[in-house]
């Protein structure tokens, strides 16, 4: 019924003209019939006409009332307001452009940052009931310790199987391999190897997530129930599109990984990117095929091969607390129940303390989130403040304009327009501004998102993150826009309509003393200055942090070093095979001999590429369980390539072979802190790993300077270096110190590698410098963006100051004229105006300083090499802000001083 009524209303709207016409006609008929009746009764035509009209009433108002009955008069009014608004926007184009520009920037920046916040932090995984999913996690870091005792951070595959069978709280449990493999494989029928991101998952992974394949099928438990005999893969939609050109016959194709030919059995749905935000696999392989994926891991049956992340779907009605209790009981049972469990006193003590926490994983889990959560929240705050400044600006501009329009508004009010009507008109105008600004902002955001994604990715490979516009985002923008409109529209609108009618009508420019009358405008300027100061100091802090980071002594020389990866697993030769060891040495020697190359070396880690750490046991000391040493397996030319100074002893040479005494070179602080005092570490022995096993025994042969290993802002790390022949292990990153042209050297180097083995895939060719730069991506992001927004804020504030001052000067023209006429000097007049500006800015700064000091506490842990209360940044910002603000005010002041008294007075 209500629906019928709505339909009738809508029909009325569309046939409005016809309805109006019908109504007019029937009213006319009515009057004519009445008139005829009176004539028939004997009245004259004129008298009859008058009488009929009188008894009928006011036609115009009846038409109006009838029209209102349709319920569309608001629309009519709105259209009118919009038309009027557009006209008045065109009347002051400069103001409109400034307003739209600041709004577009403000809203665009907010939308862009929010879209990242949404993609990285807020959006749920595209799976069935994501809120039921939990992730097993320990109290420690994500990267577990793989010694032979239970760790609650990562789990073994047999552990997962038992958990799956024994638990009472999950409807299903799934496991996924905790780290990525970038494997080089071949699509059947092609020659070239291609790099593929492989994700090993349990067969329960897809069914548990409730993800179904649009083409073929996903993996099932069947694919995962016995080792080695299920060579099947599911490929991602993106990879299918990219690498297979959306081949409809995809299910007939095969991929060769290592020595095994895999059948493609399905394509995942387009929206499914896995469970790790910002890390989309190309193909999913069942865990049972682990051994067939280079580098041939053997964890399928190993009770303590802790490399799995486990997730479960809570049964309906099971509380997280119940689930946690159940999981922890099982955890102890399963770990202690393994036949090869090492239940030594030390391990049991560890086990007793172990606690599995269940983390909600509705939004997936992500390295990215940990890395960018703080910067993104901070940037969101910054952009919100920028938007606030933009709003203040527009409020100020509108305020100035509405005061200038005081006469027009007063006339309308005097003619009987209700105040609410005029407020509505003014609000419509600001809404219009906001909508157009918002639209521009969305356009800007689309562009900014792409730029940001590139900045966040920090390199050539763009992080697979969906930051395209979505409904949630548009809703956010819409809300921001409306809030903006209300914020900057309502005060000027209310103010503008609260004029004393007689005053305004008497004098088009309102009362003569303009300055005293705009406390609101001044308050807005003060606020803008205060916020600008906060943003500027913030920007300074972050820029200085970035500078400090770049000045950090890394212990190695980052310039002029090329780095690349080769994937030696494709050869099928084991890494401890002498042929492999000599292949690496051959490559090093061949490249060493190239013209323009000073030195070259493989290593398992260059800067910021992860680490392999264990505890160590130095003879003659009590081992400290909390000390981890990072191990780096290196080629003989490593120290000269990296230019890390040798402080004592010798570096590795050809004499250090797989059969000779195992040796190590240690870092300076390791020598100083982990070895007994007064003992020369050279010639001293220690064990890598906790257990004193003979194969872990190494002799120290050299000491080198400390280096940064993982990040620029880390504390001193303990690092030891081991020669590849003695620890053949995950090796394949090459650094080349060169002279001359990067591209030429890079080509030569790649040709030399392929000269040794032309099947070796080479990837990630870049420089060490890039590598270092990438490690501070988020600090750079924050520094660049906060600097940009800081400048934007100051710029907007200057516009605000300029606008307000011009306006005030304009209003005081005749006052100034009189002053000049009675002998005030131009300098006097200039000072008169400048005094005003300086006062406002000073008040703004006075408020801004304590706010800044309070606010800087929030960012203290994002800074490096300086404190939040950094005096240099504060003073520099205050001085800078004062300078530009005064400059913004100087122009109107100069104009004031040029006022010609004659013209100014005649104007009155």
């Amino acid at each position: 019924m209500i629906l019928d009524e709505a339909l009738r209303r809508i029909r009325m709207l569309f046939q409005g003209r016809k309805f109006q016409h019908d109504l007019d006609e029937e009213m006319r008929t009515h009057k004519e019939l009445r008139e005829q009746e009176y004539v028939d009764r004997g009245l004259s035509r004129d008298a009859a006409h008058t009488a009929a009209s009188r008894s009928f009433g006011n036609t115009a108002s009846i038409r109006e009332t009838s029209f209102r009955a349709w319920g569309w008069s608001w629309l009519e009014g709105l259209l009118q307001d919009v038309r009027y608004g557009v006209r008045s926007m065109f009347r002051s184009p400069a103001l409109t452009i400034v307003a739209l520009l600041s709004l577009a920037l403000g809203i665009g920046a907010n939308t862009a940052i929010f879209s990242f916040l949404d993609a990285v932090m807020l959006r749920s995984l595209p799976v069935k009931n994501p809120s039921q999913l939990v992730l097993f996690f320990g109290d420690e870091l994500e990267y577990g310790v793989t010694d032979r005792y239970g760790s609650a951070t990562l789990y073994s595959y047999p552990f997962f199987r038992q958990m799956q069978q024994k638990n009472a709280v999950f409807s299903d449990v799934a496991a996924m391999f905790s780290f990525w493999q970038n494997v080089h494989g071949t699509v059947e029928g092609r020659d070239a190897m291609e790099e593929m991101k492989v994700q090993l998952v349990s067969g329960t992974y897809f069914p548990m997530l409730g993800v179904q394949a649009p083409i073929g099928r996903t993996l099932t438990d069947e694919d995962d129930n016995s080792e080695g005999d299920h060579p099947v893969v599911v490929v991602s939609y993106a990879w299918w599109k990219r690498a297979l050109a959306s081949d409809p016959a995809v299910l007939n194709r095969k991929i060769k990984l290592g020595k095994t030919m895999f059948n493609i059995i399905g394509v995942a749905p387009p929206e499914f990117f896995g469970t790790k935000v910002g890390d989309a696999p190309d193909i999913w392989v069942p865990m049972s095929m682990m051994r067939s994926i280079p580098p041939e891991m053997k964890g399928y049956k190993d009770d303590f091969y802790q490399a799995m992340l486990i997730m479960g779907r809570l049964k309906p009605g099971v509380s997280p607390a119940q689930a946690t209790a159940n999981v922890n009981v099982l955890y102890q049972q399963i770990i202690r129940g393994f036949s090869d469990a090492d239940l030594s006193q030390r391990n049991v003590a560890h086990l007793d303390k172990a606690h599995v926490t269940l983390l909600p994983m509705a939004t997936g889990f992500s390295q990215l989130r940990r890395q960018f959560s703080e910067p993104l929240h901070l940037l969101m705050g910054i952009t919100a403040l920028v938007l606030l400044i933009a709003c203040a600006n527009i409020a100020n501009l509108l305020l100035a304009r509405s005061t200038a329009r005081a006469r027009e508004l007063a006339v309308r009010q005097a003619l009987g327009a209700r105040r609410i009507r005029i407020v509505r008109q003014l609000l419509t105008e600001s809404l219009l501004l906001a909508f157009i600004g918002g639209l521009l902002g969305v356009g800007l955001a689309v562009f900014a998102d792409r730029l940001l994604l590139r900045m966040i990715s920090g390199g050539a490979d763009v992080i697979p993150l969906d930051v395209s516009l979505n409904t949630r985002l548009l809703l956010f923008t819409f809300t921001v826009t409306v809030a903006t409109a209300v914020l900057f529209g309502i005060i000027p609108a209310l103010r503008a309509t609260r004029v004393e009618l007689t005053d305004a009508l008497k004098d088009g420019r309102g009362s003569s003393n303009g300055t005293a009358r705009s406390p609101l405008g001044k308050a807005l300027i003060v606020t803008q200055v205060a916020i600008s100061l906060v943003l500027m100091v913030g920007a300074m802090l972050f820029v200085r942090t970035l500078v400090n980071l770049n000045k950090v002594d890394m212990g190695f020389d980052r310039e002029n070093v090329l780095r690349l990866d080769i994937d030696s697993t494709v050869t099928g030769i084991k890494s401890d095979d002498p042929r492999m060891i000599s292949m690496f040495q051959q490559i090093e020697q061949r490249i060493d001999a190239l013209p323009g190359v000073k030195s070259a070396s493989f290593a398992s880690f260059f800067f910021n590429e992860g680490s392999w750490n264990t505890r160590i046991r130095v003879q003659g000391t009590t081992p400290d369980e909390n000390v981890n040493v990072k191990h780096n397996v290196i080629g003989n030319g490593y120290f000269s390539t990296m230019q890390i100074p040798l402080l004592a002893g010798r570096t590795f040479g050809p004499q250090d072979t797989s059969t000779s005494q195992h040796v190590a070179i240690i870092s300076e602080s390791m020598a100083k802190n982990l070895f007994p005092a007064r003992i020369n570490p050279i010639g001293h022995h220690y064990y890598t790993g906790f257990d004193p096993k003979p194969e872990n025994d190494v002799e120290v042969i050299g000491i080198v300077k400390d280096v940064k290993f993982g990040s620029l802002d880390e504390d001193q790390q303990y690092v030891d270096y081991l020669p590849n022949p003695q620890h053949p292990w995950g090796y394949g990153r090459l650094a080349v110190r060169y002279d001359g042209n990067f591209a030429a050297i890079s080509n030569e180097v790649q040709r030399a590698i392929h000269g040794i083995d032309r099947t070796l895939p080479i990837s990630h060719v870049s420089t060490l410098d890039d590598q270092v730069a990438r490690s501070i991506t988020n600090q750079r992001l924050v520094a660049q963006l906060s600097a940009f927004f800081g400048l934007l804020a100051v710029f907007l504030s200057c516009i605000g100051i300029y606008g307000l001052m011009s306006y005030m000067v304009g209003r005081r023209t005749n006052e100034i004229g009189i002053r000049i006429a009675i002998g005030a000097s131009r300098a006097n007049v200039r000072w008169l105006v400048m005094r005003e500006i300086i006062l406002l800015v000073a008040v703004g700064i006075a408020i801004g300083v304590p706010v800044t000091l309070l606010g800087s506490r929030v960012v203290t842990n994002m800074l490096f090499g300086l404190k939040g209360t950094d005096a240099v940044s504060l003073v520099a910002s205050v001085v800078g802000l004062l300078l530009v603000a005064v400059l913004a005010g100087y122009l109107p002041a100069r104009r004031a001083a040029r006022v010609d008294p004659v013209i100014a007075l005649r104007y009155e």
Partner: protein
Amino acid sequence: MKRDEIPPGTLYLLILKTLSLHGSLHGYEMANSIQQSSDDVLQVEEGSLYPALQRMLIKGWVTAEWGVTLGNRRARYYRLTAEGRKQLARELSQFQRVFGAINRVIQTA
């Protein structure tokens, strides 16, 4: 003759009732009919019929159709719908309730 204004809120009732008696009427006939049925006591400001009719069209109580009068003029004829009949019953019972209540108050006084 002095006529009384229609008590507020009863215009719909009068229109609905008139239509239910006569089937199909145009505005002028409605005005006349109300005036005559009330023995010329109630005065309809004739124009005020039209906003009311618009509202009743929206509510779906009446439908309108163009037709021709006996004098061969084009006129819009209104007719009750089923919903209109229900509304008439509702308005009537409400009116009687209120009117009865007022009556009782007056008589006790």
